[in-house]
């Protein structure tokens, strides 16, 4: 009999306590960010879309080797000896022409392992997260700008990585 009333009292008191906490929360400010009219500024180390500054890329293929999901495809060919020398931003001479540099963002797992071995720091993860597309193939980014050399000169120069 006594437990009956004790449980009743306990029930009432704890229910009123819960209600009290909820009441106090009515007056705490909301933490909602009204996206898309308001947006967070992404922190500088934010890992979202990959970007490669192809002018600095020396075609070493380290990024493709390290990627755990094989989403980077690099195809290079040796620069012909009579072409003028091209340099990356930090002075490294570019010995290879990068004819294919494809990143498939649908495969990318955003681990940023590719950004660390890059010798010229041309591959980086930006903070851009609003890049949805209607066609899945638009997520295959083609960064390479160099065209392959003429067919007869190609065979001895092509190296493919990953």
């Amino acid at each position, binding site marked *: 009999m006594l437990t009956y009333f004790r*449980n009743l009292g*306990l*029930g009432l008191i*704890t*229910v009123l*306590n*819960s209600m*009290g*906490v*909820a009441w106090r*929360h009515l007056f705490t400010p909301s*933490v909602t960010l009204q996206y898309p009219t308001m947006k967070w500024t992404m*922190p500088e*180390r*934010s*890992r979202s879309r990959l970007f490669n500054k192809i002018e600095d890329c020396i075609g070493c293929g380290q990024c493709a080797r*390290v*990627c*755990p999901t094989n989403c980077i495809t690099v195809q290079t060919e040796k620069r012909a000896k009579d072409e003028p020398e091209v340099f990356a931003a930090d002075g490294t001479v570019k010995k290879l022409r990068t004819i294919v540099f494809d990143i498939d963002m649908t495969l990318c*797992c*955003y*681990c*940023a*392992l590719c950004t660390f071995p890059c010798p010229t720091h041309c591959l980086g*993860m930006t903070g851009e997260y609003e890049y949805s597309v209607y066609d899945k193939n638009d997520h295959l980014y083609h960064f390479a700008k160099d065209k392959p050399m003429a067919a007869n000169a190609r065979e001895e120069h092509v190296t493919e990585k990953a």
Partner: protein
Amino acid sequence: MEVDYSGDVMTLNMGPQHPSTHGVLRLELKTDGEIVADAIPHIGYLHRCFEKHVENVDYAGVVPYTDRMDYCAAMNMELGYVLAVEKLLGIQVNNRVRCIRIIMAELDRIASHLIAAGTYGNDIGSFTPFLWCFRDRETILDLFEETCGARLLYNYNWIGGLMFDVKPGFEKKVIEFVDYFEPQVENLNTILSDNYIFIKRTASVGILSPEVAISYGVTGPNLRGSGVKFDVRKDEPYLGYQDIDFEIAVGTGEHGPLGSCWDRYMVRIREVKESCKIIRQAVAQMTPGDVRESVPKRIKPPAGEVYMRTECPRGELGYYIVSDGGPKPYRLKVKSPCFTVMSAFREVSRGSMIADIVAILGSFDIVLGEIDR
């Protein structure tokens, strides 16, 4: 002619898509009226061939894959793997790496237990604590994002070190968070843990006795909820946990039989408080240094095998790595704590009511990514 008067046993399917199973789990319930005669879990809906996959990736590239097993506590998953490989290689990390790893692991433990508490309240019907837990978790995720750039799947613990050093001012922010958070746990207790209705719904169901728990190999908060004081951080300390002073939270059976759902849930809440203590001590013990000084250029462990146990928020996580001397693991096997708990689920849920199945499942705090790998 024999007639079976035991009543017809109806098979009910709590299918892979269900609001209350924490992931894609199929429960086949054989019910006799309201009482559950048997509850058979069917798993495998989230199997992604993790253990086979990593045989084709080099050791450093396995870390993002380990993140994705238990996505709610990714730091701890990475930590277990990284410590296993470091044991194989014989690398000792410096104090700064050790302290940052402890801080990250404990922050992740808090985040994971907040998810557990919030979703458990959601299953029981109290929708508000869910939002409060996630609001507090946001600060933790912001700290992680500032340090390594990602909020859920970090790839932060590297073999031999860390991906980035923490930013200046990180320690201050962590202490600020811990100071803000400890009173918030009281709020959570008032609205959920001490609520009479919640206690009535959870404190008399899902009794897991210590003997059954030990025989099934249950570890973590599920075991400690039954009163057994066992924690890998105290039993086989790693990362210098022996230099940090904290208590093991156990269930005390104060509102019902020992080993009830309420006890397991309460162990998690108490563990969160212990994690706050650990974080404060780790911040105090931090020294300056280079976080990538022990990261090897090429990771080629000598041929051999290693088994490393760590305490992840869901129990004892074990990594068994067999190396053949090459750059990729020959065999990687993960001992998942949630998998062992699911085997104990069948025995615990026998004899309970259908409405309690949801409560028992929520109290075990499973993540299907870890069970299925």
